[in-house]
């Protein structure tokens, strides 16, 4: 055991980037105005893309089902607005690739108020019915991975969940969407957690929040009643505290075996936004049609925490925030450590978009790269105990198969190694290249 655990609970290794949340952490969530057109990509979740069930020209109401799940590991889509289906075809996704999507033109005469839907009598649902309802609501993991939530709830025979872990770590710098949600909607969060806890039959709900969010911790503490099976755990501030396996290690000191899932150590982990989405569905009958997005970074004129209907083009969000400054060089979807660059601003906000960050030359220009001097900082940063220096060297030499011997597939691409490297070697980027090559060759028959 690491002796440091006596002083503060945490996983081993990891890095300490600046928090950089000051720009938005005190700004209340704000609803963005409705825009003219919405673009709903069919593949907003990990797994199989949804299957469209609408026709061009068809009128849809806000919250109406527009695409159904194509498989078990797939989910549904609902219209974020009242309007007309304008086009179904291929549109550019944020990464620049064409993906199948539904374009909806908003009805300018509709009020776009949320219909007060019907609450769902969740107490009487069986676990299978509950899983079906979560899939009907189109809920996915909203921390960024967008893994269909109902799949996580399907616990195989013989396994049992003891702890429901609510992940409010939000360890990525800049992002404050989960932070604001915990401050402004603690009751819904606790409600959603209670629904899931009861349905999974877990003994206890544990909420993990990094200590740099004292207001969120206070708000939750205020709403947890004595005797509730809920435990709030302030977490040591360290990246990647919010990574599923790391937060489990931190709180329960259990290591999820490589290639296995949290349920194998009797834990179910959900992001705070996901849990609030569950409360929205079961308490108000509202499927997942909007999410909270932090728009921030040095390139944004007026940073904000926004409640955004899914499908809103990034360009419209930026316009609402006063636009990009002239110095802006790059826009990132997600956080600065694991986010991905946006190739076209016409691409939409999807279920997994936690942040839109704009960066200037200070962040995007890489320092001059030096040779690896084997200083070992990456080895001591990697929370998965890999040898990133070795992996990067192998990737440069294109010895991708050799990388497998160094467990490259256990890498979650958290980026601690690149962050820690004094020689400015793009370590995680090189590792990604290797993983992509290995994955592609595995999927493509020879």
């Amino acid at each position, binding site marked *: 055991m690491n002796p440091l655990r006596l002083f503060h609970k945490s996983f081993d290794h990891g890095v300490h980037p600046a928090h950089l949340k000051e720009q938005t952490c005190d700004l209340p969530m704000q609803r963005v105005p409705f825009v003219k057109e919405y673009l709903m990509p069919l593949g907003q979740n990990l797994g199989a893309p949804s299957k469209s069930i609408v026709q061009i020209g068809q009128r849809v109401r806000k919250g109406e089902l527009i695409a159904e799940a194509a498989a078990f590991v797939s989910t549904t889509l609902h219209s974020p607005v009242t309007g007309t289906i304008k086009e179904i075809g291929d549109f550019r996704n944020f990464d620049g690739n064409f993906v199948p999507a539904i374009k909806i033109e908003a009805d300018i005469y509709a009020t776009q108020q949320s219909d007060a839907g019907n609450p769902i009598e969740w107490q009487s649902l069986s676990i299978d019915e509950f899983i079906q309802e979560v899939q009907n609501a189109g809920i996915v993991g909203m921390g960024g991975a967008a893994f269909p939530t109902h799949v996580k709830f399907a616990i195989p025979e013989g396994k049992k969940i003891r702890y429901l872990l609510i992940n409010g770590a939000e360890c990525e710098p800049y992002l404050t969407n989960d932070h604001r949600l915990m401050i402004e909607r603690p009751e819904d969060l606790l409600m959603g957690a209670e629904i899931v806890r009861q349905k999974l039959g877990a003994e206890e709900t544990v909420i993990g929040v990094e200590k740099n969010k004292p207001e969120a911790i206070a708000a939750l503490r205020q709403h947890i009643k004595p005797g509730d099976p809920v435990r709030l755990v302030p977490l040591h501030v360290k990246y990647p505290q919010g990574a599923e396996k790391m937060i489990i290690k931190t709180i329960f000191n259990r290591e999820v075996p490589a290639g296995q899932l949290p349920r194998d150590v009797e834990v179910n982990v959900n992001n705070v936004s996901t849990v609030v989405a569950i409360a929205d569905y079961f308490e108000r009958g509202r499927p997942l049609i909007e999410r909270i997005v932090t728009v921030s970074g040095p390139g944004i004129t007026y940073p904000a925490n926004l409640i955004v209907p899914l499908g809103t083009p990034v360009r419209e969000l930026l316009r609402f925030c006063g*636009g990009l400054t002239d110095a802006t*060089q790059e826009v990132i979807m997600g956080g600065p450590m694991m986010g991905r660059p946006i190739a076209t601003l016409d691409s939409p906000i999807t279920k997994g978009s936690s942040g839109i960050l704009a*960066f200037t030359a200070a962040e995007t220009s890489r320092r001059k790269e030096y040779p690896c001097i084997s200083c070992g900082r990456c*080895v001591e940063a990697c929370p998965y105990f890999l040898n990133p220096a070795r992996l990067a060297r192998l990737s440069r030499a294109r010895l991708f198969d050799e990388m497998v011997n160094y467990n490259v597939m256990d890498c979650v691409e958290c980026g601690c190694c690149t962050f820690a490297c004094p020689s400015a070697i793009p370590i995680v980027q090189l590792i990604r290249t290797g993983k992509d090559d290995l994955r592609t060759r595995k999927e493509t028959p020879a």
Partner: protein
Amino acid sequence: MNAKDPELLLEHAPLLQQGMSTPQAMRDVIYSLVPVTLAGIWFFGLSALLVLVVSILGAMLTEWVFSSAENKTESLWDASALVTGLLLGLTLPPGLPLWMAFLGGVVAIGFGKIIWGGLGNNLFNPALVGRAFLLATFPIAMTTWNPVSDVDGFFMVHATNLALPFMHVEPDAMTSATPLGLFKFEQEATPIINLFLGNTSGSLGETSGLLLLLGGLYLWWRRDLDWRIPASILLTVVVFSGILGLFDAERFPTPLFSLFSGGLLLGTIYMATDPVTSPITPKGAWIFGCGIGCLVVLIRVWGGLPEGVMYAILLMNAATPLINRYTQPTVFGRGKERS
């Protein structure tokens, strides 16, 4: 919204980086060596300064000559050649003929670094390669030690310093043995306080234990060195020589004497911790350090030479790739019973 879209870059995350850079780490090493260097000059006078300057010149000139055309000034700015030249100079006797010090610098960079493919690719510590070459080629000059100079002698340059290349060198009339030499050949122990402060004869940067430890602390505080390596070397030396002392306290040096005499601290803090030539894995660092500690005591006690730090480090450098291979960290979730 601006009228035009900015030309968006697609630089991949992470976009954040910690502040330390490789040239900065090299500069830290130089800063930490300032007290030791000044003390060496103070103890051994102008001769010491000349030896240092010349060995640095040899190293940097070689680096410059062998760098690719577009990289000529850049490679000097990363300061690694300066560090190598300085470290080499600090391991030399203050009365060494200057041309030998220069040649040592050339060999350190040329054979210690460039032929391996430059920074980051060498197997052996470059400064020690330079020193090993000098010791093998000029054994007399490399083991002729000048006593600490008095105040009057500060500006005196030893005649041996100015010897012409490849000519016969008349040894300085004023020579004195190092504390290790005294112990080995005359069974005479030097007081620990002198070893600690540094007013004994020896290589010009190795004598002051206090300042070397201070430099090491600074590097540890800046996280530029892996503390496991010095810790394991020093611990091994103390334990090993302590055990020997149990058998024959007269014949074997005390642990404290072993720690502060000779080049142990200089080698431990500055050469053994060279990141390029030491293991990258934490477990490997312990093995590496223990190996060096054992070899140091073995060579010092049973070898023909009074000092063995240089060979101990070079031998363990050779073992580094193997150590790395067998000490890969246990990947998260792959331990036998980690959860």
